[in-house]
């Protein structure tokens, strides 16, 4: 099987790799690029542990081919903390003990981040729907939902401050 050569952007960095045409993006990220924050759960799109964004949209990287990433932009959990500072969602997952074994956590964080970018003030129902593609077998979801609610509140405050600063400037 001839390998496919792919040039893409991952967490803002230009990346090139070669992979067999039937290799999943999940395997490329983990095994070729060392981005092992992306987890493998079911490998059939049900559990969401391998969630990343592809051109800003949340996808299961197990159901994307590495070859499809040519010229696209990918974001993984590794790019979530900025300048050594955890994202509010990451802080709150710790604060609210929204994880136990941690396998599902990167996927939940990616899904929650996409949700809050689209909808800064989601209801509990909206949060539960938005996270329906992520399975957790430890915590029972309540703590995860609380962590997302707390992060939403915090991020709205931060954004207000930022826009006030902008308005003054």
């Amino acid at each position, binding site marked *: *099987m001839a390998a496919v050569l792919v040039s893409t952007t991952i967490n803002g960095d230009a990346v090139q790799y070669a992979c*067999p045409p039937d290799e999943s993006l999940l395997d490329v990220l983990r095994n070729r690029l060392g981005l092992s924050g992306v987890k493998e759960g079911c490998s*059939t799109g*049900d559990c969401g542990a391998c969630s990343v964004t*592809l051109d800003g*949209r949340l996808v*299961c990287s197990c159901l994307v081919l590495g*070859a*499809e990433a040519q010229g696209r932009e990918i974001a993984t959990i590794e790019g979530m903390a900025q300048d050594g500072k955890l994202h509010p969602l990451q802080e709150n997952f710790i604060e609210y003990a929204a994880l136990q074994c941690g396998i599902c956590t990167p996927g939940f964080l990616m*899904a929650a981040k996409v949700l809050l970018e689209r909808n800064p003030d989601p209801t509990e129902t909206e949060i539960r729907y938005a996270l329906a593609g992520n399975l957790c077998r430890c915590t029972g979801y309540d703590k995860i939902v609380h962590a997302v609610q707390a992060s939403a509140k915090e991020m709205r405050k931060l954004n207000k401050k930022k826009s006030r600063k902008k308005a003054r400037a």
Partner: protein
Amino acid sequence: MRYESPSTTREAAALLDKEAGVAHVLAGGTDLLVRMKLGHIEPDLLVDIKRIPAMKSISHSARGTRIGAAVSGAELGEHKAIAKAWPGVVEATNLIGSDQIQSRCTMVGNLCNASPAADSVPAMIAAGARVVVVSRRGRRTVPVEKIVTGPGRTSLARGEVIEAVVLPARPARSGDAYLRFTPRTEMDIAVVSVGVNLTLERGRVKTARVVLGAVAPTAILVPAAAKAIIGTRLDDDALDKLAAACSAACNPIDDKRGTIEYRTKVAGVLARRAVKIAFQRAGGA
């Protein structure tokens, strides 16, 4: 296996035509890549259609709305004009899987996977949607109900690819709806589903199409159910006849998620509800 991502439909058709081995079209991959992983299929060639502009776009003309075959569920849901004109079709498509799946799945992939429980299919058939089928020899336009011939089987010939779904122009006072019954609220497969599309005239149903999913080897158009409500304002008698016609049309499987008796009964119940929603959306009272 080879992976190709052509930039025109012609090129895609030529690639499919030339391949001597097993070739598959790759849309969102949410069925195809799962089947490959499970070892159900071993393609020699995948033709990714997502870089074909004609398949990624949505356009309107006097004849209707053309939705490219590679438009994802999420993209369809964000299209305000279609969501307004065809809420049933959009809701049905948006029921497919999670947000992760929505980012990738397509209506045409849902159709060509040919599952009896595919969510967007009853809604498309109720809408009177057609698909544009392209091959090296030319193109043809086919009603959606002519594509699936049985579980996992379609009428598409070797080398054919669907370029787009076309929803017909919408007369005034029309409404559509799609409802599915699942044991869970999200991430589940329909046990019974119903798609309805109707147009009113002077407060009464003038034309209607009622389609059932997951109760037969393919989605089924039920003309007797439509007949039961045409000319009425959905009085109780009409709704009873509609429900009876839907139950009579069922030929379901019997499994742990729903017995034959259960699916048959629920088909009538869901049809009543869906017809009322479509009626209201059409401005009926």
